[in-house]
């Protein structure tokens, strides 16, 4: 399907926080309680609409296990957006965020939009990390923040789409050089011709999903 832009996303965070489940919920609208350990990268893709434009999200779900990190971090490059995920029921996954953030910023471009996600919000009774702590961390490091549940699909669409909106706004502001694919943004074939007129084309943003 034709698209105006393609955004490359990465999903990062400790093992077991629900990265693959978030991807599956977003792309397939289903929850799989048992998922194999991710090795390397699992890919997903979905079309969304922002400001009337079709945008393809190309999502790289990376392995969270420490053993694989030295390899998978080399695939961060060229990402326009990142979902940095922790598990609200496991304090250690929150404590490791700084390391993940450093890794992400070191191995990708400085303009990458990062969405901090506190996943498993359905498990309120087992919560170890307060929502306010996530918000404070995000504020301190200039991230967007949401709590999600891949199980109930709560905020999953919003997490992916809001990240795309932020990237789109940066494109409009000229922060991203869309002609440099190292920024994780690829112009769709039918949009390349009208690319020059993009600036100033801001308007109300509507987002909707649709599998590609």
């Amino acid at each position: 399907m034709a698209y105006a832009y393609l955004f490359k996303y990465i999903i990062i965070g400790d093992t077991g926080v629900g990265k693959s489940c978030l991807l599956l919920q977003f792309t397939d609208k289903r929850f799989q309680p048992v998922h194999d350990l991710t090795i390397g990268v699992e890919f997903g893709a979905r079309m969304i609409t922002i400001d009337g434009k079709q945008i393809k999200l190309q999502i790289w779900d990376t392995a969270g296990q420490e053993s694989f990190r030295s390899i998978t971090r080399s695939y961060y490059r060229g990402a326009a957006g990142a979902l940095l995920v922790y598990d609200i029921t496991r304090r250690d996954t929150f404590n490791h965020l700084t390391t993940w953030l450093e890794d992400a910023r070191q191995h990708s471009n400085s303009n990458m939009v990062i969405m901090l996600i506190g996943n498993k919000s359905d498990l309120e009774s087992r919560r170890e990390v307060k929502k306010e702590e996530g918000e404070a961390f995000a504020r301190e490091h200039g991230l967007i923040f949401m709590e999600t549940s891949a199980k109930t699909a709560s905020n999953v669409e919003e997490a992916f789409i809001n990240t795309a909106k932020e990237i789109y706004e940066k494109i409009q502001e000229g922060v991203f050089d869309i002609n440099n694919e190292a920024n994780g943004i690829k112009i769709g074939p039918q949009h390349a011709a009208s690319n020059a007129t993009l600036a100033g084309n801001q308007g109300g943003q509507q987002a909707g999903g649709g599998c590609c």
Partner: protein
Amino acid sequence: MNTAMGPLQRQLRAGEYEIFQYAPIFESDFIQISKRGEVVDVHNRVRVVTVGVACTSPALLVPNVLLLARPVVPSEESRGRRGPPAKALELTRLLPLRFVKISVHDDEMLQLRLKLASGRSFYLQLCPQGDAHYELFDMWVKIINLLRPPAEGSHGGQALPGDPGAFGEPLFHGISQDTTGSLESLAPEEGGPDALSVRSLRTPSPSRDDPGSSRSRTPPSLSPSLPQKPPSVGRGSQRGGSAGERRSQAGSPGGSPAPQERSQGSHGSSPSSKKKESSRRADRGGGATRSKSSQSRGRTPSRILSLVKSLSRVSLSRPPKEKKKRR
């Protein structure tokens, strides 16, 4: 001679995945099976998985990642057009070869085993390729030999420091169990043995050394070598001929089943039938010999041949201690 790229490589050429845009890929279609060689699907339909080994860095001497893809179900729009829709693939997984061990599960049935660092194992049977699929499987065997970690072979240091996915050292410390996977995420509802491919591997240019920015440095010479027509190496296509006849004559005096029959038979083949298969193929000799023969007959895509030649050179430097001999 067919020099076409495979559908996965051709699709990645479009550039959606920048890192793979000019990556040399050796790819084939496989059917996902169980450890016993049976089709893993309650609907008794085959699940085709396109498997490719690729180099994400032109400076690498050997492939560093395994790519998995599956056919995309044609949309209503494409179904409405005249003629068959173009085969579209969906890239599903990247497995750094450091974290996956590929081995021959059953060379008679052309089956491979992928064992991941997590301990999960997946079994794949090469899709029927007309008369050429034995040669193709031999090439996979050569690749497998090439991909052995240094601890298993005599060659080391193929990978460059920091290469994503390259196997400088085996990292199978996570293996504590041997479980059989279903590759659930790779299971398409569409596709079948018709979706075949014998694909190419480009010899990387030694002048390029950055896996992430190979696009701008791709030598112009790559473009003219794009295929003029689809590979069309399906069952019973142009590959039929002396290579297959040679196999049939040498390996099946009693009348070996056609390649696709072999494959279909594998869905529920019994151990005794496997023994018969083994005896039929007893005289065929080693894979390298057959591949060499097929090269001389010009029946194999030239880029695969160049790969196999390069693999052969590397393989010569290591002891064939683990190579499973065909009976």
